[in-house]
């Protein structure tokens, strides 16, 4: 087979370039965070944990990391619940409105982040119920942009679900709720977990929406790194980045384990 359809040599070269474009910036962040000097030079001056230690005592980056983590956690819980319920409807209802709703749920990710951020900010000020510049307002914004990812992943796992299993439980006398809770839910749990991890990562790295909704005392990690990039290149930001990189890599590994990678990539 290999000599009938080998991958052209030029393709291999360009693919390596593409991978470098994707990965070298990440590698640089890791190096800058572990480098002993103020500026990353080539070759690096030496290995040091100084910036990592700085991160743990930093008055900006550590609270920002904690805030981002907590915000992502709260967002994930809300958007997993709302998104999973909506997914069950989207896959099981026979209503004509299904397609319209599906489109509606995906709109928040189509809208440019700056536009959505501005719209929410103005709305929060208009409505004047204390959502402007508050943590609750931030969570609302993040739920909007993470729910589509939960719906996409959970819907994919429900479409493949064999309904006869649930019907069997029903015919053996389980109530609809029992049948769902004891039979269906455990079977679609991998899909739900993958969706919620997805939501967590999207919320954790969300920048453009947060820009409009946060305040100086509500600095998320992306915002803190952003302001350090505008005014001074602090290697502490890179050290904070290393922790974020680990978090995202582990989550991606888990979520690809949970959801069938091939299924996500090949369209039906």
């Amino acid at each position: 087979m290999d000599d009938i359809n080998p991958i052209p040599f030029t393709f291999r070269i360009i693919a390596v370039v593409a991978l470098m474009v994707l990965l070298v910036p990440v590698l640089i962040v890791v190096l800058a965070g572990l480098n002993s000097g103020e500026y990353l030079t080539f070759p690096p001056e030496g290995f040091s944990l100084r910036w990592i230690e700085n991160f743990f005592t930093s008055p900006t980056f550590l609270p920002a990391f904690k805030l981002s983590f907590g915000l992502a956690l709260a967002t994930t819980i809300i958007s997993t619940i709302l998104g999973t319920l909506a997914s069950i409807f989207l896959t099981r209802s026979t209503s004509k409105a299904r397609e319209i709703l599906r489109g509606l749920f995906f709109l928040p990710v189509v809208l440019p982040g700056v536009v959505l951020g501005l719209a929410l900010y103005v709305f929060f000020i208009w409505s004047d119920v204390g959502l402007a510049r508050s943590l609750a307002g931030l969570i609302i914004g993040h739920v909007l942009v993470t729910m589509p990812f939960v719906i996409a992943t959970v819907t994919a796992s429900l479409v493949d679900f064999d309904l006869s299993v649930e019907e069997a439980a029903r015919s053996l006398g389980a109530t609809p709720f029992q049948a769902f809770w004891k039979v269906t839910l455990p079977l679609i749990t991998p899909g739900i977990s993958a969706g919620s991890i997805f939501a967590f990562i999207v919320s954790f790295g969300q920048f453009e929406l947060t820009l409009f909704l946060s305040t100086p005392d509500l600095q998320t990690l992306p915002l803190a790194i952003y302001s350090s990039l505008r005014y001074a290149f602090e290697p502490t930001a890179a050290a904070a980045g290393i922790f974020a990189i680990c978090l995202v890599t582990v989550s991606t590994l888990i979520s690809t384990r949970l959801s069938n990678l091939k299924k996500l990539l090949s369209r039906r």
Partner: protein
Amino acid sequence: MTDLTGGSPTPRQRPSWLSPNLWWLVIPAILFILLFFLIPVLSLFASSFDKAMPGQITFQGNFSWNNYERIFSRSLYYTAIWRSVWLGATVAGVCLVIGYPLAFIIARTFRAGTATLLTILVLSSMQLDMVIRLYGLMVLMGDKGLINTGLIALGITSEPLPLMYNEVGVIVGLVQVTLPFMVLSLIGSIRSINPALEEAARSLGSSRWHVMRTITWPLSLPGIYAGTLLVFALAISSYVVPALMGGWKVITLPIHIYQQIAEVGRWQFGAAVATLLFLTSLFAMALYVVALRRNAGGRV
């Protein structure tokens, strides 16, 4: 999509759980979207037709076209529109050229492990916080960055090359950020091409490039359209990349929106620019959905 009766000849009586009366499941999500998405976004669009009043954020109800007239009567703004569109198109082109080979390798490799590893690399680089990746790029491309200090140390140039705080920097940044979306759009479409077609052409004596040009590329066109439009839409709506990599020298539409509002307090005008940006990206997204439909329908 899903046939609830499972195709059985005699429609069974559906248990109440499976009956269409499932609206209570979706009501919370609908209310959430209605209250925190549709109402805010529609009122933002409405306020773009409101008379311009700097510093005035509340809705006044004085209909006027002023904000839109202002956008199209000042070269500053339509230059920004053109710059956004031009940057988006360039980024989509670059992503296609460097993304296609990678997608092809992931879709066609015979070693399953390689495909999985590459896919995970693409996925995790997509999911990593953009600002962190831009930090890496800025350390690499700045005047005192690794590339420039390296080139100067090697004696290739004496002056640092202007890699950042200009359009080059913005393009590289946008390519870095949007490339995974291109690759992921292409993989599905290349995978759906039956390899037997390529093998047949090869065994009949076509060269590898000829097969690529006449079979693989045309059959992956739906994925190419989808990926290009998706990348275009993402690129024109990015704020953080032009802000950091362009250093406020490359003014695109999202930068205008932020400046008009955060710095000058022109809410209605900012809303008008936002509406324009949304319509442009909605148009690209609508084409994207059409391309996806064709992608799903045109499978061999």
